[in-house]
């Protein structure tokens, strides 16, 4: 209990002091995870919609695979991305290892299946509702996908936020591909891991509380924005 107090006090001190290092780390955490969430949403949401409106032989296999990939271990993803981008790896020439870009790529791989799977589940129900009408109007598959994405946008927000939540708290993959280099690739979660291993528990806890506050803040901000919509019930 005493540690918790110490942590809260340390967190307060850091914030009140406008600690430059702290704000740099927060900024990098947000940059990496928000970018990864945007890219993963751009891939995962249309993929989920496409799965909802398409009927093909291997559909069940693809959906099962997607659900299984939701539980992809971040450490393994980190290791694979590391091998791809390491100097001897196939993409080594790009020189991306130990950069925020590599961290974004790793997080994209982790959360795209999650976002696609949640999107598919939400849009499957909407498609059941719309099916007869959209078939009757002879819409193209692209039009069906676009209609579902637009009309299901509130449910899809949840899918993206779930992806954001998984990525912002993730440490295994970004530690491996980013390397936790001060002023280059250090983010909140890797800093917490470092401070904990140094035995600096109060600082680790302070960073942890800030991380949680950040996640809550982003969720509140997104929900605040979406509440401005015209039709609250949808």
């Amino acid at each position, binding site marked *: 209990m005493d540690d918790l107090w110490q942590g809260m006090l340390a967190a307060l001190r850091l914030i009140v002091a406008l600690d430059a290092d702290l704000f740099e780390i927060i900024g990098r955490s947000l940059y990496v995870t928000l970018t990864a969430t945007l890219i993963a949403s751009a891939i995962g949401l249309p993929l989920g919609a496409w799965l909802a409106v398409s009927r093909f032989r291997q559909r069940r296999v693809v959906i099962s695979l997607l659900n299984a990939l939701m539980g992809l271990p971040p450490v393994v993803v980190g290791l694979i991305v590391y091998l791809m981008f390491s100097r001897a790896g196939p993409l080594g020439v790009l020189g991306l290892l130990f950069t925020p870009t590599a961290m974004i790529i790793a997080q994209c791989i982790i959360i795209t299946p999650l976002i696609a799977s949640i999107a598919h589940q939400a849009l499957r129900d909407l498609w059941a509702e719309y099916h007869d009408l959209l078939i009757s109007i002879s*819409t193209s598959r692209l039009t069906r996908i676009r*209609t579902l994405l637009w*009309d299901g946008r509130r449910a899809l927000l949840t899918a993206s936020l779930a992806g954001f939540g998984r990525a912002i708290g993730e440490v295994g993959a970004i530690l491996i591909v980013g390397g936790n280099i001060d002023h280059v690739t250090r983010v909140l979660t890797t800093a917490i891991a470092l401070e904990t291993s140094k035995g600096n528990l109060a600082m680790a806890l302070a960073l942890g509380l800030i991380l949680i506050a950040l996640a809550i803040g982003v969720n509140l901000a997104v929900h605040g924005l979406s509440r401005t919509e*015209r039709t609250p019930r949808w």
Partner: protein
Amino acid sequence: MVDLLPLTVTDASVRKGGRTILGPVSLTLSGPGTTILLGPNGAGKSTLLRLMHGLDRPASGSFSWAAPRDIAHLHQAFVFQHAILLRRSVLDNIAYPLIAHGTPRKAARDAACDWLDRIGLTAHANRAANTLSGGERQKMAMARALIREPSVLFLDEPCSNLDGQATAEIEALLQDASAHGTRLVMATHDLGQARRLATDVLFVHKGKVQEHAPATSFFTGPATQEARAFLKGDIVL
């Protein structure tokens, strides 16, 4: 308007869950006017409509229009028993079929505004579709179906849950569409409505077309025992 008729259905049947729920049916629809499908609940009226529109696939047999099937489908519309509401405003619901087929947004919205005016829902243009009453929803669905000026319009008991006023408004829209050359094919079990609108009647019972006759001869002297009982108001089993 593209001429899709005659529609010829040959020995078509529809199976669901391993059970034949319609057919085999054979029929021909041609000429202008309004075909009314009559019959008790569960007779297969909805399934027959869905088959002709291409929403249900025939398990056996076939049907063909005077045009290739995908062209024919583009010039048809369907009004469902319960209006399917897109999660959009009333205006955007009505404009949707035009936008889905490439009409610029502005022009589609203008056309939808004209329709809103015709169905008396201008004041509700920007409300979410699910805030409309039952009658208003069905009028919105009618406008959405008619906005692309279909050659053939299918209707599955569009007035089944509506009061007299709303029914009269829907029927006025139907007669107007018919006067402008849209062929109507409509299921109902409201005999009064059938008499008001029909030029010919398809009597459907137990998944089969029992009788297909011009309205006047059907209502004055139905050929089958079941149709006679149905017209008398007896319960047809």
